[in-house]
Structure formats: structure tokens, C-alpha cells
């Protein structure tokens, strides 16, 4: 059974590989949504009023404390049903993964902002920048560069978590592997195959991030 199983599994490869684009679309959609929300949350967490900080803390606690699968079910079956909204599983996957990622990314960016010397803010204020200008033009350009290694890690986490969206039937890698497995009964080889595809995507992504980190580094400004 093992002998020729992998050949049959390999025949399903083209079909599974089409799922790469769906997986990547979910991952990058979620990362982008998470970045936009996370950035706002991080700035609010560092510079906001106590009430704002508490609210953001609660948000982060909520999205970091509930399993992805439960949130997917809650949104797809619960909230969409209550709102009488019709969204595709693909969109729900991006929204839920994006909300979770925003909680984690806010902590990555917050850490990066906190690691900057206090003098940066004071100097920016001293040369006449407003608080907002100082954050946008002085603090964030530095903090976002420092956040790149954290993002690289977040990419690998979201990439692997995206396999769970199979529970809603999003046509990504895992779902497609399952389709082929249901037809050929080569579960063993197919799941190894799909795992290796995930590993390749992880490797390419972290490599790309390391290259970006080098590219945006400011000369003479190494820490």
C-alpha cells in the first residue's frame, strides 16, 4: 500500500497547489488587516488615556484567549447569523484571522515603540512637532523597522493557523489535500505533502522578511 501510494498522492499535487494562492490570500489579507488595526491599537496602548488603554487591553485579552476554531464558529455561524449577513467562508477567515493577528501585532508594535529611547519623543517635540507628527514621522518609522522580526514570526503563525480555516471549507491547501485524500485514500502521503508545502511557504516568507529587513535598514543606524 505504501509502495505506490506516494505516486498517487503526487498526482493530486497540481490540484492542491492551486490552494497555495487561497492560503496566501487568506494569510496576507489577515496580516494586512491585523497590521492596520494592530498599529492603531499599539499607538493607543502606549499613548492613549487610561480608559483607552484598558479597553485595548481587554480587546487583546479577548482575541488572544479564545481558540481560533471557536472564533471561526462564533463569527461564521453566530454573529453572521444574528446580523443576517451573508459572507463567504474566505472573507470570514480573513476577518477572524485578521482580528486575532491585530491583537498579537499590537503587542509586537507596542514592544517596538517601548524599546525606543524616550529622548526620540522629547527631541521631536522640542523641534516643534505635534504629538501626532512625532508619532507618525519619528516614532513609527523607527518602531516599524524594529517590528520586522516579530512580523516574520507572526507570518509563520498565521500561515500555519490558516490551515484551521479548513473547518469552514475555505478552498486552501489543507481542504484540497482532504479532497484528494477522500478520493485516493492516500491520507498519509497527502498530509506529508501538504505539510512540506507549508514548510516551503514558511521558509520563503521568513527569507523575504529578512531581505526586507536588510533593505529598509538605515545605514549607520544599527542598534
Amino acid at each position, binding site marked *: 500500500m*505504501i509502495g505506490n501510494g506516494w505516486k498517487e498522492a503526487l498526482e493530486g499535487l497540481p490540484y492542491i497547489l492551486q490552494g497555495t494562492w487561497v492560503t496566501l490570500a487568506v494569510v496576507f489579507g489577515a496580516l494586512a488587516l491585523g497590521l492596520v488595526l494592530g498599529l492603531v491599537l499599539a499607538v493607543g496602548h502606549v499613548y492613549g488615556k487610561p480608559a483607552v488603554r484598558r479597553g485595548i487591553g481587554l480587546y487583546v485579552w479577548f482575541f488572544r484567549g479564545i481558540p481560533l476554531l471557536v472564533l471561526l464558529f462564533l463569527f461564521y455561524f*453566530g454573529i453572521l447569523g*444574528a446580523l443576517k449577513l451573508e459572507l463567504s467562508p474566505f472573507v470570514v477567515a480573513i476577518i477572524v484571522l485578521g482580528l486575532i493577528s491585530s491583537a498579537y501585532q499590537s503587542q509586537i508594535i507596542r514592544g517596538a515603540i517601548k524599546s525606543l529611547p524616550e529622548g526620540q519623543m522629547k527631541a521631536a517635540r522640542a523641534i516643534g512637532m505635534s504629538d501626532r507628527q512625532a508619532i507618525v514621522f519619528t516614532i513609527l518609522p523607527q518602531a516599524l523597522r524594529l517590528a520586522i522580526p516579530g512580523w516574520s514570526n507572526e507570518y509563520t503563525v498565521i500561515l500555519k493557523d490558516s490551515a484551521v480555516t*479548513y473547518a469552514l471549507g475555505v478552498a486552501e491547501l489543507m481542504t484540497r489535500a482532504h479532497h484528494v*485524500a477522500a478520493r485516493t485514500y492516500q*491520507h498519509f502521503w497527502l498530509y*506529508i505533502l501538504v*505539510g512540506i508545502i507549508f514548510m516551503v511557504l514558511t521558509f520563503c516568507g521568513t527569507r523575504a522578511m529578512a531581505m526586507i529587513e536588510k533593505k529598509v535598514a538605515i545605514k549607520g543606524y544599527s542598534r
Partner: protein
Amino acid sequence: MDEFLFLRQEVAPALMSGLWMSIRLILPSAVCGLALGVLVGVLRIYGNHFLKALVGTYVLFFRGFPLLVQLYLWYFGLPHVGIYLSPYMAAVIGFSLCSAAYHSEYVRGAILSIKKGQMMAAKSLGFSHTGAIFYIILPQAIRRALPGSGNELIYLIKYSSLAYMVTCIELTGEGKILASAYFKYMEIFMIVGAIYLLMVSLATWGLNRLEDFVAVPGFERIHD
């Protein structure tokens, strides 16, 4: 009032049995994962070439594969090579092997952060190599690995929900069955989510206590 009766007679018993199953998944996986993780972490530093390569490959694959893929491999894949696991066993083995790979990275990093002089001092006091690792290096390293490994335990609590995907009916699974039967997705998954939040918060609190408890006076690391 009907709502209350429904909660007490239908929801509570099902979710309680689900919670019990979740705990039966989390605790053994946490213990096995941690023990194996420490062993793998030690081997990655002190093992011979062959062992280093072996555990290095193990960590590469088990950190690289999504957990769901690993669970499917154990539950749906292994029967093809003649090994049949119950959903519960597949989940516990899957969780343990996956979290051990992550724990090993924290332990490895912690061991590397211990100064070389500790090993030399231990040996000059007459410890054997293995003795020095177990009595001098590891007690310090595990304390340093605790924040990272603690995080991994929190992840394990959340990822235990994936056991539902390999038909091991735990908290999420019971919730899904209830919600589908009574068409009350919103309420049920809110309750299920709240239970996970409670577990995660309790574990976070407990781990912080543990960190303070095992801290060696004079060896504290500065918290931020």
C-alpha cells in the same frame, strides 16, 4: 425562565463533560510535551552529531507542519501504515510531539544563555558531564525557559480545540453539537469562548505565580 432551564439541563452538563475532556487532553499533553521538550533541548546542545541531526530534523518538521496537518497525519494517515489510534490518543500524541518541539527551542535558548563558567565550575567541583547538566545547568535554564514555555502551555490550551477536528469531542466539539442541535450558535460559542478565556487567564496567573515561586533570590531577571 425557559432559557435558564435550557442552560441548566442541556447546556451545562454537555459543556462540563466537554471541559473535562479538554482537561484530559491538555494535562497529559502538557506534561509529556514539557518532558520531551526538555530532553530534546538538552540533546540539541549536548548530544553527539547523530543525535543533534536527529532531533534537529524532528524540531524542523514539527514546528514547520501546521498542528492540524500533524493531527490529521496521526489520525487519518497512520492507519495506512497499519497503526490505528483512537481520536483521544491521536490528539494527545499530536499535541505532545508538537509542543515538545516548541518547548525544546525555549530550553535550547535558555541553555545557551547560561554562562560557560557554570559548566566549568561544576566540573571542577567533581560533577560528571551528565551530573553538571542535570544539577547545575538545567535548574537555571528551565527557570529562564519558563516564560516562553509558559506561553507554549497557553497555546496548548487554545489548540486543544483542534482535537474536535479529529473527532475527539471536547469543549469545542460539545459546543458545536449543542449549537447545531438547538440552532443557538451565538450563545453557545460565547459561553465556550468564555470558558477558554477563563482557562487561559487562570493558567497565565498560575504560571506567573510559578515563575515568582521558583525564582532564586539574587538571580532575578528584570521584568519589564
